[in-house]
């Protein structure tokens, strides 16, 4: 038993408890140390994870996988967590209390994500999912003085618990039919005797439960309120990392467990994808609050990933590549957009789109970063969003679903309108107050890294795609 394979998770858990512990002896004005400690610690964990690259191991008879697919998304979750922690520093010290638990919970949630992407068996997946969810239930209600934050926490925990229950019931039904909980075992069972009603119901319930997690329609209702109410760094974390982990689990389930029933769930997934994209984009058109706008935009982006899910195939790696590229690209673009929202909220306390008027004059670099991240989300070339969307649509067409590609492309066009509204405010309108905004160096640094990543991945995606291909090859038959 090679315990080195678990080193990243162990280190991360130790880090979380270390933060909890050191917090007890840290005075109020030194809490930022915990953030820096957490960030540095997570970077070390990232190094330990990257060191595992090249392994393709199935542990405990399929309970836990350490393969390229898992490693890529562990690294992704860790890096996103680092950025979230660093951009929280200013925000947390202004608006929040109990900062030790705050940073510790972010790390805990990251541990959950790392476990989720490695899970090869239903109960492991469930426990990991719950670890992530519980951390977020607390984190989303962290701004105790803000009634919206309290509401966000309550809504999230109730709906989250409900969806977990659904998923668990689905898992029990699948277990009843397949007599095993490992994904491989389910695959074998499905191949040998096909689907019966119990199995179908079980699969649908599991997909519904996970659908809540990734805010797919019709399980998305919690997302706008939770995104709006949570402290903004947590919204960023939720919209990027939690969603990605949920999708990774879905990909593993669909390719490693449910692939023999492809005909059953492919059309369902395509229809859900259309619903998700459409609801997300149409609702976003009317938003005035930037966090709600980004929330609905996230829902629509989940829809694009679901187009990729519908295109998953046992023989072609294109859909797997596309999903992974889009999750990573969307992740960094969305994160950059949220960092801009965070810094603006820190300095002015405002979060309406019209409050961004004239930002290009007051904080030119932040406005530029916001512009680039929104254009990436809209799928404009030179940014990774263009490549990832193109990849998704090509994957859909290659599986004979050109109609789905058309709907998705049309949705992408609709989204351009509301992204342009923000651009219009920043660049065309005049600011309500004059004078430059003092942007902290740390935020500028984070934004530089993120937009360089988004741009490089858009111009030269091949290195990233090589790593991704190594992962998607593993998902084929």
């Amino acid at each position, binding site marked *: 038993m090679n315990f080195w394979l678990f080193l990243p998770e162990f280190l991360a858990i130790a880090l979380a408890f270390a933060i909890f512990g050191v917090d007890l002896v840290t005075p109020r004005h030194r809490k930022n140390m915990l953030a820096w400690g957490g960030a540095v610690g997570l970077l070390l964990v990232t190094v330990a994870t990257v060191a595992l690259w090249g392994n393709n191991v199935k542990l405990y008879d399929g309970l836990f996988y350490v393969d390229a697919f898992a490693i890529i998304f562990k690294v992704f979750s860790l890096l996103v967590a680092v950025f979230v922690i660093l951009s929280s520093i200013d925000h947390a010290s202004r608006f929040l209390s109990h900062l030790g638990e705050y940073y510790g919970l972010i790390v805990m949630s990251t541990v959950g994500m790392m476990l989720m992407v490695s899970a090869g068996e239903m109960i492991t997946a469930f426990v990991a999912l719950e670890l992530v969810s519980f951390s977020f239930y607390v984190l989303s209600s962290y701004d105790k003085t803000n009634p919206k934050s309290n509401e966000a926490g309550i809504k999230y925990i109730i709906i989250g618990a409900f969806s977990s229950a659904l998923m668990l019931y689905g898992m029990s039904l699948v277990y009843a039919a397949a007599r095993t909980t490992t994904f491989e075992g389910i695959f074998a069972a499905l191949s040998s005797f096909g689907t019966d009603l119990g199995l179908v119901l079980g699969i649908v319930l599991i997909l519904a439960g996970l659908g809540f997690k990734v805010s797919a329609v019709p399980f998305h209702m919690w997302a706008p309120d939770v995104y709006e109410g949570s402290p903004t760094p947590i919204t960023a974390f939720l919209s990027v990392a939690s969603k990605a982990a949920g999708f990774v689990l879905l990909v593993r389930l669909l390719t490693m467990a449910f692939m023999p029933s492809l005909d059953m769930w492919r059309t369902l997934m395509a229809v859900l994808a259309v619903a998700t994209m459409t609801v997300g984009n149409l609702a976003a058109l009317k938003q005035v609050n930037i966090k709600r706008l980004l929330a609905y935009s996230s829902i629509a982006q989940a829809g694009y990933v679901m187009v990729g899910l519908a295109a998953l195939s046992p023989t072609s*790696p*294109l859909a797997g*590549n596309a999903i992974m590229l889009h999750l990573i690209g969307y992740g960094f673009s969305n994160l950059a957009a949220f960092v801009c929202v965070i810094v603006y909220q820190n300095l002015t306390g405002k979060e309406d789109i019209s409050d961004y008027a004239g930002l290009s004059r007051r904080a030119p670099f932040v406005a530029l970063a916001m512009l680039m991240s929104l*254009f990436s989300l809209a799928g*404009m*070339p*030179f940014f990774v969003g*263009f*490549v990832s969307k*193109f*990849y998704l*649509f*090509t994957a*859909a*067409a*290659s599986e*004979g679903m*050109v109609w789905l*590609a*058309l709907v998705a*492309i*049309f949705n*992408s*066009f609709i989204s*351009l*309108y509301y992204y*342009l509204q923000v*651009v*219009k405010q920043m*660049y*065309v309108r005049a600011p309500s107050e004059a004078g430059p905004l003092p942007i902290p160096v740390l935020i500028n640094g984070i934004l530089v890294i993120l937009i360089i990543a988004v741009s490089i991945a858009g111009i030269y*995606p*091949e290195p990233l*795609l090589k790593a991704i*291909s190594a992962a998607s090859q593993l998902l084929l038959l």
Partner: protein
Amino acid sequence: MGLLSASIVIPFVAAFIIMAIPRDRVDVAKWVAVAAAFATVVITTYTFVNYDYTAGGFQFVERYAWIDSLGVSVHLGIDGISAPLMLLTGIVIFCGVFASWYITDRLQEFFFFLFVLVTGVFGVFASVDGFILFFFYELAVIPMYPLIAIWGSTRKEYGAMKLTLYLVAGSVLIWTALVGVWAASGTNSFDLEVLSTVKFEPWVQTVFFAFFMIGFGVLGGLWPFHTWSPDGHAAAPTAVSMLHAGVLMKLGAYGIIRLGMLLLPEGAKVWLPVLIAVATINVVYGAIAALSQKDFKYLIGYSSVSHCGYVLMGIGTMTVIGVNGAVLQMFSHGIMTALFFLLVGSVYDNAHTRDLREFGGIAKVAPKIAIFFAFAGLAGLGLPGLSGFVAEFMVLTGAFLSYPLLGILGIIAVAITAVYVLRMLAIVFFGPLNPKWTELPDARRAEVFAMAILAFFLVFLGVYPAPFVRVITSGVAPLLQRIVGA
């Protein structure tokens, strides 16, 4: 780095250099812009002059691997059709830089977006890979929004949003067709040379050619999807209108040729008759609409819709002379409309009005503007000796060969064009001088320089079109053979 990739990279790098220059040294930024634009003129002139029209095919080819898993490579090359269009882009951006010489508000950001746009345009003309072509196409469309919304004039936010949404809506169809063609080809490649060898099934060709035709037609000003054009051009700042009407709208027609006709010849055979019929509506409707305009820029805008109709008409004739005429008209109208918008911009900057009725006899105080306006106007109505005549003559000849009735309508439109052009010249420039304008300044030096260059090409092409037609034919003839023979 080869010549074609240089023509793409130079404006792109220049955009960033210009942004990096400190805000108190705007003059340095202006000369960087001139240098970059001049470099592209030199490169595109070289590639055009040295294009071997006897050999034909794609020349100056470069190929770099990009996304292997999708079959995408940065495959660049120009043929007889794209070589003159690259040259057109170089000329128009060079003149466009001088047209923007006197902008004072955030000039560096303006040049940034302008050069990103130009990068996209050069990229589209030079691409021999569908993915890359679309990449550059979107890159060319997106900067239009900030350019118009920030530096524009009449109803700029409305014009900018309308233009952007329309063009991106058109690109929805293009994107779908591109992805669909890739999937139907079974070749796992976006490379146009590879895809052009595939014999697609008839229904695939019919459906996707229609997508390409309408999708690119939106940008090309095809009726009834042209309505973004007058509002967009009227709202846009001068250099942007020059580039947009002069070059970008040609991307639309070019796309129909390069993606539609090259890849889907049977589909082209089905839909080109529809195209020529609608294009004739463009030509006539645009001319009639121009006749009733009171705003200078709207008049030129509708005139563009009408003249771009000739391009689409020429493509629809499915004859060598017709399509030759179409490409030549792309070049000729590109120069002409760039000159028109430059002139209108110059007048507006000084007079602060574009209402035709408020002018009168200003040739007396602004002779340079008047002379160049006359040049452009006469080219527009097809006066022999200027480029418009050659191009429209070829298009109409092609039309008569295939659809004589449409040819007649086209000629009627020429007559209507003459009416609105001459009327505009008469009302604005000639006749008694309106006392309001006795102090009206003439065009400034940088603008005159640009006007002279454009006028030169109008004359050159009108008097000696042979070098252009030779090159264009080498690209058009093989293409048409596939379609007519298909």
